[in-house]
């Protein structure tokens, strides 16, 4: 097993642990095993780019940090310039705390919630305090990496522009913030586990992961524009209710020490910045036994919930799916899309992005010149929402539970076309059409009634595009392939499919702008093509 540099660094503070009664040698061994295991894991952010082969996993986490270094550039103006600390530093810490907290939840919840620890480590002659210290240090090591990535460059700029005191305050506060975040997350979990069961907690974590991925996708777009929005002269005053704004606590010491602002609120907030992390860690140590007890909930059966079935839905469904096998698979696929956390993590952020993308491009062109919405062709941007289709269709044939597909071989199924059709229809109706409908309504109000035929064209184009993507990815039986089989080849295909979408949009643009009734003609052509291609794709026959 490899000896990690960070552990050798940690060795220097060995006496500290021994002093508070923690067996440092044992803790170090536990940490070493955990860090080794982590090298086989890939962080959320990497899951996003579906192509990565996992051969070069070593230091995978460290590599992913480059992305955060990029994000850290946003802090430079806030930390490096100006003396309106309360405002600048509050903003900086608000973003920083958000980033660290979401990463903590999405990537390190597994560490906090590891129930294996209980069965493996608690049965060995180890003091529980040592186990918990190892857990805490494990997370803290990663958060330290992350914090360094996020603050190193702005901090150096700050050192030169704002002086050594600024630098020192920031270092101390960053340490406090990190401790505070770990404890806060743990307390949050304690609260959730106290009232809900483990499945709810896993769902909550999943949604945070989805949110983080979406934030990173959109944040990248906003980042570029953010510099224009910043107004350094903005005055911020402290009110009694600001006490609930955690980033403000951490901004107050700067005012106090660097600007010499001795107002009552500034002093109170500065005190909070130091005492709260310490109080929280004391509270956490107190609550650890409760936490450990409630962790067992992760292993227990979740509460039963019953879903209502509406007869109207059933009737509509039998119109959409003719055979009962197709209906069964339609239901199954809808449930998988709704409940499989891996699928959600990979597809839902793109779904959110697909919703935002058209607007980003419309606003981009708005900045260049004024748009007259009554004649503009800007609605063509709605094609950007089709970006979701290749990703989702690809993910539809994969599953974390691909081994469960043994049931298909046992079933008396003549061929799999009904299954494939059912799942594609489920994707269109449950994920794509809702997105499309909402976008269409917004576009309808922006551009007026005249674009209704064009919106219809987009719907037909999407259906055609879905089936093209599906054939392109090899017409797999849904949910039967392992997730890690998604390789570079597939990523390239996604890229090619995007070109196809662009061509579809291009034809649409040409038809609508150059030919009278062009949209209507295109609509009819697409309708016929749809009918033909769906028929050909599912002509029956084995597999």
């Amino acid at each position, binding site marked *: 097993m490899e000896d990690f540099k960070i552990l050798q660094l940690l060795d220097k503070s060995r006496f500290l642990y021994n002093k508070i009664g923690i067996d440092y040698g044992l803790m170090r061994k536990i940490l070493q095993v955990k860090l080794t295991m982590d090298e086989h894991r890939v962080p959320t952010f990497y899951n996003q780019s579906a192509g990565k082969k996992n051969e070069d996993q070593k230091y995978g986490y460290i590599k992913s940090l480059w992305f955060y270094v990029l994000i850290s550039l946003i802090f430079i103006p806030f930390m490096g310039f100006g003396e309106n600390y309360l405002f600048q530093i509050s903003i900086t810490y608000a973003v920083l705390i958000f980033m660290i907290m979401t990463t903590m939840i999405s990537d390190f919840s597994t560490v906090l919630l590891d129930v294996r620890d209980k069965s493996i480590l608690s049965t060995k002659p180890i003091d529980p305090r040592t186990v918990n210290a190892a857990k805490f240090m494990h997370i803290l090591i990663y958060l330290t990496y992350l914090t360094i990535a996020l603050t190193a460059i702005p901090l150096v700029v700050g050192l030169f522009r704002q002086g050594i005191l600024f630098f020192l305050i920031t270092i101390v506060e960053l340490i406090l913030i990190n401790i505070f975040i770990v404890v806060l997350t743990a307390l949050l979990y304690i609260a959730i586990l106290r009232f809900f*069961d*483990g*499945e709810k907690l896993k769902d909550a974590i999943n949604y945070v992961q989805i949110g983080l991925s979406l934030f990173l996708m959109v944040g990248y777009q906003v980042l570029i524009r953010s510099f224009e929005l910043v107004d350094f002269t903005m005055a911020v005053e402290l009110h009694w209710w600001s006490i609930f704004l955690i980033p403000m606590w951490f901004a107050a010491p700067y005012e106090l020490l660097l600007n010499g602002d001795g107002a009552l609120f500034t002093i109170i907030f500065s005190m909070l910045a130091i005492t709260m992390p310490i109080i929280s860690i004391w509270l956490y140590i107190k609550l650890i036994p409760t936490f450990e007890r409630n962790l067992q909930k992760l292993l*227990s*059966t*979740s*509460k*039963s*919930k*019953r*879903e209502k079935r509406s007869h109207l839905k*059933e009737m509509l469904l039998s119109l959409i799916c003719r055979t*009962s*096998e197709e*209906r*069964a*698979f339609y*239901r*199954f696929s809808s*449930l*998988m899309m709704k*409940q*499989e*956390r891996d699928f959600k993590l990979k597809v839902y952020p793109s779904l959110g992005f697909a919703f935002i993308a058209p607007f980003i491009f419309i606003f981009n062109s708005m900045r260049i010149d004024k748009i007259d919405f009554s004649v503009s062709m800007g609605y063509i941007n709605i094609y950007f929402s089709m970006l979701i289709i290749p990703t989702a269709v690809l993910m539809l044939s994969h*599953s974390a*539970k691909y*081994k*469960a597909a*043994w*049931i298909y*071989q*046992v*079933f*008396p*199924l*003549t061929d799999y076309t009904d299954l494939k059709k059912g799942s594609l229809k489920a994707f269109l109706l449950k994920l794509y059409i809702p997105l499309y409908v909402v976008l269409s309504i917004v576009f309808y109000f922006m551009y007026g009634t005249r674009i209704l035929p064009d919106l219809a064209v987009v719907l037909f184009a999407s259906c055609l595009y879905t089936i093209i993507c599906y054939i392109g990815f090899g017409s797999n039986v849904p*949910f039967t392939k392992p997730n890690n089989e998604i390789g570079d080849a597939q990523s390239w295909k996604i890229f090619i499919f995007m070109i196809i979408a662009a061509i579809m949009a291009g034809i649409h643009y040409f038809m609508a702008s150059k030919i009278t009734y062009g949209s209507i003609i295109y609509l009819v052509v697409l309708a016929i093509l749809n009918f033909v291609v769906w028929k050909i794709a599912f002509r029956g026959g084995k597999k």
Partner: protein
Amino acid sequence: MNEQEVLMIANLTKSYGNKEILKGVNLSVTRGEIIGYIGPNGAGKSTTIKIILGMEGDYGGEVRLFGENIEQDSIEYKRRIGYVPEIADVYDNLTGYEYLTFIGQLYGLNLDIAANKSQALMELFGVGEAYHARISSYSKGMRQKLLIISSLLHNPDILFLDEPINGLDANSVMIFKEILAQLAAQGKTIFYSSHLMDVVEKISSRIILLHDGKVAADGTFEQLQAASTGGTLEAIFNQLTDFHNYKEIGEQFVAVVQEV
């Protein structure tokens, strides 16, 4: 051909690469039999079952189920089979209700019938309260019960069970044994594969022992007893699979444990 014959396997061979797993298995099973299908690890038990279920192709010999060669009609016969695999992955992000109705529908049951049936069976098996909970939160025994129910939803004529009572408590095992006896009395055929010799000894009407890719013994427990010197099925098993040195291995094992 015998009217009562449900399953007939003639000279079945199967290899993976150079490795021959099945070296000519012959057997015939009639209605209402409970076959205890035993053998050491790697003897080819699961492979035989997978071939019969159509999960493995490319074999030599002939397999006839209900009088039909399974290669002839490779789909319809599956409607009459129920299967509980030893290591069963399930889509465990679904609830019991969602999974079971899905399975039922793919066997051609109507949604309501599948829902009612699976709920009733879950309740009878003492796991009714978990019916609408996610399978990922099930205990091992609950999961096993779910699998057993999913193999029976469509009222199959022949059942292939691979270590079906794994994780079930003693009371549930009693219920399950009773279910098997009742099913057999109604003319269903049960293929029961397990390493628990005492269970196999008690429930089987006939025992087939597979060793080294061939049938090493085939008959009722009494017939097997008569043909060998051992008293229990475990002893017969040891004898037929040529395994005698368990004492020496055990001694050596303990000796290594004591080295510190």
